């Protein structure tokens, strides 16, 4: 069958209709609601920046019912927040594979504001890439940028492929002016931590360093921090961490993401011209109070 504009149009409208079955409206800020995705049964994901209060949050379901939701946790680093609702209210999202996206692929952004029907935007993937760190410090598994317009209220909504599968959560705040999508795998990782701890623990060494020839020189050590407890001193030159040669602080930051808190890292360093080894127990970065 020849693909005509009408059949293509119907396919897009079908994708919106199916994708929107797990898309809710989130009332967690004054005036304009944001969008959320029913990610697992009883679990709503939205963007952290749109959740402006911790209590009195409600969501409007696709059938128009407005029900209370509880904030389960938030991670400003990846701009994700998780809300809990009673189970069995609506279908959970169906996921696609965002690693298969290439520039030029057609995509939709969905939203819901209040008790109206779904809202949709259409565009193309403009750039893809590997792992990156947001300006707020969160690690995101894939770089997905599109030319979609994230209209007011669409933040926190899903990126949807024309086959109606959800590829991630659209964030208006992580990168401007193009829309950025937090891929499914990152959302999974973050909500698992948010549901168990209420926040995302990030590794912490308690030492400041800068590159020198052959390694990283320690510039300061936090009293009673992990580096201090391991015996590290100002002026030490760290040459290797966890078996990897280190030459730039980014390599250390890359090591401190994921499930790292509580692990012991082997440190090799040069102190006064001599090679020294130390065991460094990774701590949890102190959390700023909001």
């Amino acid at each position: 069958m020849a693909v005509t504009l009408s059949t293509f149009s119907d396919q897009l409208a079908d994708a919106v209709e199916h994708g929107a079955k797990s898309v809710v409206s989130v009332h967690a800020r004054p005036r304009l609601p944001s969008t959320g995705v029913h990610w697992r049964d009883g679990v709503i994901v939205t963007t952290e920046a749109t959740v402006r209060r911790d209590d009195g949050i409600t969501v409007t379901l696709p059938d128009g019912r407005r029900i209370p939701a509880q904030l389960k946790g938030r991670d400003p680093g990846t701009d994700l927040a998780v809300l809990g609702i009673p189970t069995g209210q609506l279908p959970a999202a169906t996921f696609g594979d965002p690693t298969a996206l290439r520039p030029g692929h057609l995509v939709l952004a969905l939203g819901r504001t209040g008790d109206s029907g779904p809202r949709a935007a259409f565009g193309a993937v403009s750039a893809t890439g590997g792992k990156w760190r947001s300006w707020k410090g969160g690690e995101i598994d894939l770089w997905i940028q599109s030319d979609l317009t994230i209209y007011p209220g669409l933040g926190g909504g899903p990126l949807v492929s024309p086959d109606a599968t959800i590829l991630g959560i659209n964030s208006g705040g992580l990168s401007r002016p193009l829309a950025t999508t937090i891929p499914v795998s990152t959302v999974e990782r973050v909500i698992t931590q948010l549901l168990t701890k209420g926040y995302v623990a990030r590794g912490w060494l308690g030492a400041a360093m800068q590159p020198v020839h052959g390694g990283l020189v320690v510039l300061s050590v936090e009293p009673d921090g992990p580096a201090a407890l391991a015996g590290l001193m100002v002026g030490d030159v760290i040459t290797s961490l966890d078996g990897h040669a280190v030459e730039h602080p980014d390599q250390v930051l890359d090591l401190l993401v994921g499930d790292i808190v509580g692990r012991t890292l082997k440190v090799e360093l040069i102190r006064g011209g001599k090679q020294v080894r130390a065991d460094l127990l990774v701590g949890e970065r102190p959390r700023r109070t909001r």
Partner: protein
Amino acid sequence: MSTPGYEASAWVKDCVVEVHQGAGVGSGLTWAFDVVVTNAHVARAGKVQVRLPDGNIRDAWVRFADRERDIAVLDVPRLGLPAVRRRDPADLRPGEVLFAIGHPLGVRHAMSSGILHAVGPLPDGYPIPAQLRRLPWVQADLRLAPGNSGGPIADAEGRVVGMSTMIVGGLALAVPITAVEALVHARAA
């Protein structure tokens, strides 16, 4: 019936005119024998000039207008163009392909394409006065510019669903074609 996109846009294009009043240029669409509709902010009052797709110029007169809904109905003697085909925007689904034809920034008969965002009033929080926000709109995720005003937004088969009227927060807002029908029927009697 299914049509390739260029055919659908070609049909609509034959129904789109330029509306000149003073230094301003807007778009208009052919409605019926010797009748063109456009935005009230494009044809403010009295006499205007209409440029047809073949380049001919016709004098036209504002027969009546609804300033609140931003609709003006023009008498255009010797118009000689087909009337647009129409579709009730209430039947549209979000995601359907739409396209706009007009004269954005003076570029004649330019087409832009996108999809239906939603139909109805705008959500609270859009930068627009409340009395305008609460009106029903055909909201489209497609690019408009000054000069599109009064021109059609049509579906994948070239049926007009709305009249391009304004841009709010990047979103294209069109007066539902059913609102134009209602005004014409009420006033033509």
